[in-house]
Each structure stands twice: as C-alpha cells, then as structure tokens.
C-alpha cells in the first residue's frame, strides 16, 4: 500500500512537472498558473465545496467502471446509464411531491433504477444473443443520448425555456445544502462505503473479484458466473445512474441539454488511472475534480486557456499508467544490483 501511494504521488508530480514544461514552452509562468489553479479549487471553504461537489459524478461513474472492470464485464455504458438515471430522477421529481425525507430517497432509488435498467439491457443482450457488452453498452450510450434529448425537447419540455430542458423538479427533491457544501457528497460517501463493503466483505464481492482475475478458475470453483455477471452489470449501472440523479438533484434541479457533460468518460479514465481500485478511484476523482474546478480560476487570473487542464489530465493518465509497474521494476532491479555487489565482494 505504501509503495502504491508513493508510486501514485510520484506519477502525479512527474506529470505536473511535464505540464510545467509545456507551459514554459508556450511562454506561460507555470508557478503562478499552478498557484491560481489550486487556490481556486482547494484554498478556502467555497472552492473546496465546489471541488467536492464536482467530484461526486466523477467518483460515482469511476466506481462504476472500477467495479465492472475488476469483476470482468467491460461496462463502458456509464454515459448512457448516467443520463437514464438523471431522466428517471427528473421524472420522479416532476410527478411526485412527497416530504423531503421520503422524496430524496425515492428519487435516488429511481436514479439507480434508471441506470440499472440501461445496463440490464446490455446484460440481457448478452444472455439472449451472446452480444458483447463492450459493444452494446457503447451503442446504448448513443441511444440514451438521443432518447433523453427527445424527452426534454418534447414530452418534458419546459414551455418557458428557450432551449431543451425540463421544468424544475419539486422543491422536496432538492438536495439540502449546508453553507457552501452540498449534501450530494454525503450520498456519494454512503454509496462508496456500501460498495466497499460489498466488494471486500460480502460473498458476492469475493466472487466478483476472483472472477475478474481468473474467470475459469472461479467457474471451476463452483461460482455462478452468469448470475454474478448480471449482478455486476446491474450494480455498476445503478452507480452511474445515481451519479446522474445527483447531478439533477444537487445542481440545476432539472434535466437540461448537455447535463451529462464528460463526467462519465472522465470516470472511466479515473478508473483506469486508479487501476480499478476503489480507494484509488475516490482519491483520483477528488484530484481530477480539483483540476477541473480550478481551471476556471486559472483562466480568470492567467492567460493559460482552460483547455490546458485537459492536456494536463492526459499527461497524468499516461504518466501514471505507464509508470505503474515500471517504478516497482526499477526498485527491484536496484535491490538485485545491491545484492550482486554484496555477493561479489
């Protein structure tokens, strides 16, 4: 664990240094840029609250991808599942009006249901037609994209709006805020805790993990591969759906065009960087959110364009993923050399 942390920190630092190099080549001052970046995302309650709040959809979709990849299924349908979750939560929020204590859990459940419904379609396509979820989830993303666009343009269209969006959901479905902090973080943490417990302590999680590492071994060991596959697809779909529901309930309180943004693809990217580890996904999610949140401030204060953050993210992904294992290898090789010197002496 210690070595993993060092390797991750080192990777991030090298990536930041490379980012600085790129800025120098472009004629910007890297020090003041980084200062602006992190002061707008981490320094002070308000920036911190924004970073946390923006991290929620990244982390939840990241967890969805991590659990799926670590268990075997290549669920790449987080973008579509997020949108369907958001749509289900919006529908509930528009049609139901219950006391907040009931309303919020109901909408969260609806969001999860929406995501699970969408990933469940991919699971059924595999069960019935032996179609690979790698393809079907990607295709279902497109369908979800246009289906939700149609839904907010016609049946759910807010007549007073000038662009496709729904009316606001009922007040009872809005997530409470505590000062600058939105309670979507609490929901995310609860989901993280439940998922961690499931993955690391429950029988199902044990079977998922071992199936992900060696499916044939698990199958010979008596694990019901088919049932677990369906369960993993549903759970990871529900996580992405929850991300979508939280975006609606914490933010604009309605489904508007472009709501999903890049959250889900960034989540997949975070899962890759975190090597499908749950804690790693949480931490990298926070870090990437701080970059994205600080980008606005950086643009405001310095001349560096906000798109630079995307370059920086890409560099981080490459350095961390490529560096993983390489660092261990270097460390081990130097130990071997040392031993060789001792013996030779």
């Amino acid at each position, binding site marked *: 664990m210690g070595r993993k942390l060092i390797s991750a920190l080192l990777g991030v630092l090298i990536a930041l240094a490379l980012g600085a190099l790129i800025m120098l080549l472009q004629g910007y001052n890297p020090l003041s840029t980084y200062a602006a970046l992190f002061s707008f995302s981490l320094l002070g309650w308000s920036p911190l609250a924004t970073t946390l709040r923006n991290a929620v959809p990244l982390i939840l979709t990241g967890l969805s991808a991590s659990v799926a990849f670590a268990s075997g299924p290549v669920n790449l349908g987080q973008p579509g599942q997020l949108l369907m979750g958001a749509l289900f939560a919006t529908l509930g929020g528009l049609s139901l009006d219950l006391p907040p204590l009931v309303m919020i859990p109901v909408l969260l459940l609806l969001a999860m249901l929406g995501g699970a419904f969408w990933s469940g379609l991919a699971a059924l396509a595999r069960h019935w037609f032996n179609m690979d979820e790698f393809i079907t989830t990607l295709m279902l993303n497109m369908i979800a994209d246009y289906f939700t666009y149609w839904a907010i343009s016609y049946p759910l269209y807010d007549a007073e709006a000038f662009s496709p969006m729904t009316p606001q959901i009922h007040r009872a479905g809005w997530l409470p805020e505590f000062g600058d902090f939105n309670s979507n973080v609490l929901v995310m943490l609860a989901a993280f805790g439940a998922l961690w417990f499931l993955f690391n302590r429950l029988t199902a999680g044990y*079977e998922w993990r071992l199936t992900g590492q060696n499916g044939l071994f698990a199958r010979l060991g008596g694990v019901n591969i088919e049932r677990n596959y369906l369960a993993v697809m549903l759970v990871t779909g529900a996580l992405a759906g929850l991300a979508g529901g939280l975006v609606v309930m914490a933010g604009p309180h309605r489904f508007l065009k472009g709501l999903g943004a890049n959250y889900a693809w960034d989540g997949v990217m975070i899962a890759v960087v975190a090597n499908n580890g749950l804690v790693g996904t949480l931490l990298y999610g926070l870090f990437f959110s701080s970059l994205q949140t600080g980008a606005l401030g950086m643009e405001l204060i310095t001349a560096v364009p906000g798109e630079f953050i995307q370059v920086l993210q890409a560099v981080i992904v490459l350095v961390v993923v490529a560096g993983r294992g390489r660092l261990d290898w270097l460390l081990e090789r130097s130990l071997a050399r040392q031993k060789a010197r001792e013996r030779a002496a």
Partner: protein
Amino acid sequence: MSVPFLAMQEILKIFPPAVVALDRVSVEFRPGEIHAVVGENGAGKSTLMKVLYGLEAANSGQIQLRGQAVQFHSPGQAIAAGIGMVHQEILLVQEYRVWENIVLGLEPAGWFGRLDERQALRSVQQKIDEFHFNLDPLARVGEISVAARQKVEILKLLYRNVAVLILDEPTAVLTPQEIPQLFAELRRLRAGGKTILFISHHLEEVLELSDRITVLRKGRQVATLETSATNQAELSRLMIGRELARPPRPAAAPPGQPVLEVEGLSYRDGAGRLRLQDLSLQVRAGEIVGVAGVEGNGQFELVNVLMGLNPPESGRLLVQGHDLTRAEILERRRRIAFVSQDRGRLGAAVRATITENALMTHHRLNPRFTRWRGWRLEARAALQFARRIETQFGVSMASPEQPFQSLSGGNQQKVILGRELLLETPFLLLDQPTRGLDVGSMEYVHELILTLRAEQRAILLISADLEELFRLSDRIVVLHRGRLVADLPAVSASLEQVGALMLEGKEHPDGPQAD
C-alpha cells in the same frame, strides 16, 4: 590441457529483487564430451544454460571459449560462436517442410538473392546423412512426430555448424521407445567431435548417457563428477541434500464400492470432431486408476467433461450413485475434488491472496465460512483455514495475505492440494498433479495421494509421467485418440507395453506381452 575448451567462471545471476539463481557457479566443459547438468526444479540448470546461450545476462562472472573471454548478448551471437540450444518447447514453423525449417534464417542465396532450393536441400540432406538422422527433409513439420521435430531442432543447429549443443530436458517430450534413438544420435554427435550439454532430472538417463555430471542445488554447484565414478544414490543425495525416501508401495487394501462410474461417454468438440468415444471407466473406493496417454489424446476433454466445462454428447457420469452428467459445477464439487495441471489458468487466481485462493469452493459448500445466510464472508474463518493448510501441508509462506503468485511452484501446489483435499470429497480427479514440481515436492504429493487411497477415496490420476503412474496406480488405463484402449493391473503391466499402447493404440507385435 592448460586452456579449457569452454569454461564458465564465477557466474552470478540474481533475479530481481533478490533471488539468487546462480551463486558463483564455475564449470568447465571438455571438447567432445556429453556433460549432464542435473538438479531439482529451481536449482538453476536452465538459468546456467541460458546465461551460456546469451538469453540471460549474468550479474558477474565470465565465459571463456578456447581461452578467449566471450560475452553473448543474444542467442544469435552464441550460435555464431558455435554454441546452440534446443529448447524444451520446440519452436518450428508447422506449415514449412523440414528442410525449410532447417535453413530458415540462413538460406543459401541464388540469383538475385532468390532462395537456392536445390543447394539448400542438398546441404540439409548432407547433414542428415553425416549424422545418420532418420528424417525426410521434404516432410511437413506439422505432420511429423515430436521426436522427429526435436531432430529438426538439432539439425538446425548442426546446419549452423555449432560445436556445442545444449539440450534442455530433451526426453521430456519423448515416449519411452523414442529415448534410446535420441541417445544413439547424441552419441554419434559426440563421436563427430561435438560437445553436448544435457539438462535433465532423470538420473537413469543421465547415468546412461553422459561422460561427466555437474550437480546444482539451489543455485550452487555442488559437484562435478565422472559418470563412471558415481551412482544414482549419490547423485540424488547431492541433488536434494538427503537420501530420497522411496518406501515400497504399501499393499493396497481391497478396493470397495464403485465411486466414479463413467458409462459410454462421448464428446464432440465445437468443430464436430469426436474427441472422446464411448468411454467407460470405474474407480472404486480406495483405488487409484492411472490414465496414460500421449498428450492430446483426449485427456483435456475428459477433464473438461468430468468437471462440467463441456457437456458430453452421450453417456453418463455418476459419483457414488449420483448422476452428475448434466449437473451444475457447484453440485459436482460436492463430490469431486480437482487438481489441474495448469495452476495459473485453472487452479488459482495468482494475483489474489493465498487466503482468497484457499477459500474457493469452500465458501459455497461449508457454512462455517459465511454469516448472514451465506451473504457475508467470515474473514477470520478463512484466515484460520489458510493457516491450517499452511501447517497441515507444510506450505512455507510469509503470510496468508501475500499474493498467491509469490509462492514457489511447490508451495502453490500444496495450497491447491490442501484446498481440494479438505473438501473431503469421495472422488478426486488429479490431472498431472506433479507437473513442474521439483523432486522433493513430487515425493510429497505422491505420499499424499497414497494416504488418500488409504482413506478409501477414489482417485483418477492423469499423468504424462509413466514412472509416476506405475508407482501410484492400482490399474492403468490407456487413452488413445479419445478411446480407452486398455485397462491393465499396474503390477503386471510393463513400461514398454503401456508405451506401445500409448503410441499405437495396440500392443507392440514384437513386445514381450504379445505372444
């Protein structure tokens, strides 16, 4: 005599992070000798040869060829200097003919760089004649036997005019009948002035063939001996540091009720080929039945059908009277323990911890390992279970939480055996349970199998090692092209008889048993 022909001096090789594979090993090889390198698995035999051949770089030490210090960075350089190696797994182009494989990479060029086929064929035939290899240069490699392919590999090196041939476990892929022929060929090569380095852990072979023997143990050179001045007992003592315990096989108690009953089992693969044909077989309680056969004659398919990975086309499978022909795998596992030949692919998830690997199957069959009606794992029980395997089966591990892959092969197999045996099933399917294990671990596994028989369990043992089959089995059945061609009591069967059955599906016409 002052300058040795080929010498390795003070070779030190450390595999990262700190595994000492070779600890300052020094060996001299004489021209025109057959020099055997023996040792248990992991003793460093192959590593030493790979250093010589340029596949691995040593951390320190040097190699001298005819008094000149040499350093090979690749096999190509070693071959150019006259040192070639025949690997355990044979690397040839199946679709090419024998001569094409031999000249590949060193083709005689004709006009405009075109391959001069006639010239190539002539020089290959010349080499075949020179060393009396019985081989058709025009045959396709994919259609000739493994023994013939091995000859092609050797010829490939002779064609490149090497003076030193390294053979890594050359007899492992051969049947008992083919071994004398290989030995005759190697002796002819020696007569032709070649130096042959021969890696093996079959001591009988080594004693029969070699002139001198170097023994390695745990990366150290223990001795280099004249073959005429040593014997099997001394060699095995040097190899493992103690005398091998070879107790006479305990007399089998009369076997009990049938446990495994296979009736008329047939299996067709995805391409429609009949891979198992009308197989019938019984294993009784307290009985070990050995399955002999050249690899690829249906062993793989038999295992898959018994374990439920593939459904049979017809036939029945019963264990203790329960029909498992179409049962779910978990249902089978209540009555069948399974040790596979491929630990990394079928026997374990190597990156998971030892405890996680030990828990597999038990977590579903034994309520002790779960709480909440099976939903939650009982982590402490799992850990205790791993520790029980550690002590009961003598696994050496730092912690049950370390990754499975950090264990040595022998210890990995002990964990797998522990997991499967503690399922306490009436029937055990053991598919090459000692594959890749060193002599000490192999001995341990054999003892364990005999103990299981004494506990009245029924055991089906599939093995490519005839010696192992003869040592353990009560009956030996022979698989040939998907059919069982013989069912013999082990005490009265002979090695040659079984060898002939494996190769030809029938007994040898001039074999001792034929008349």
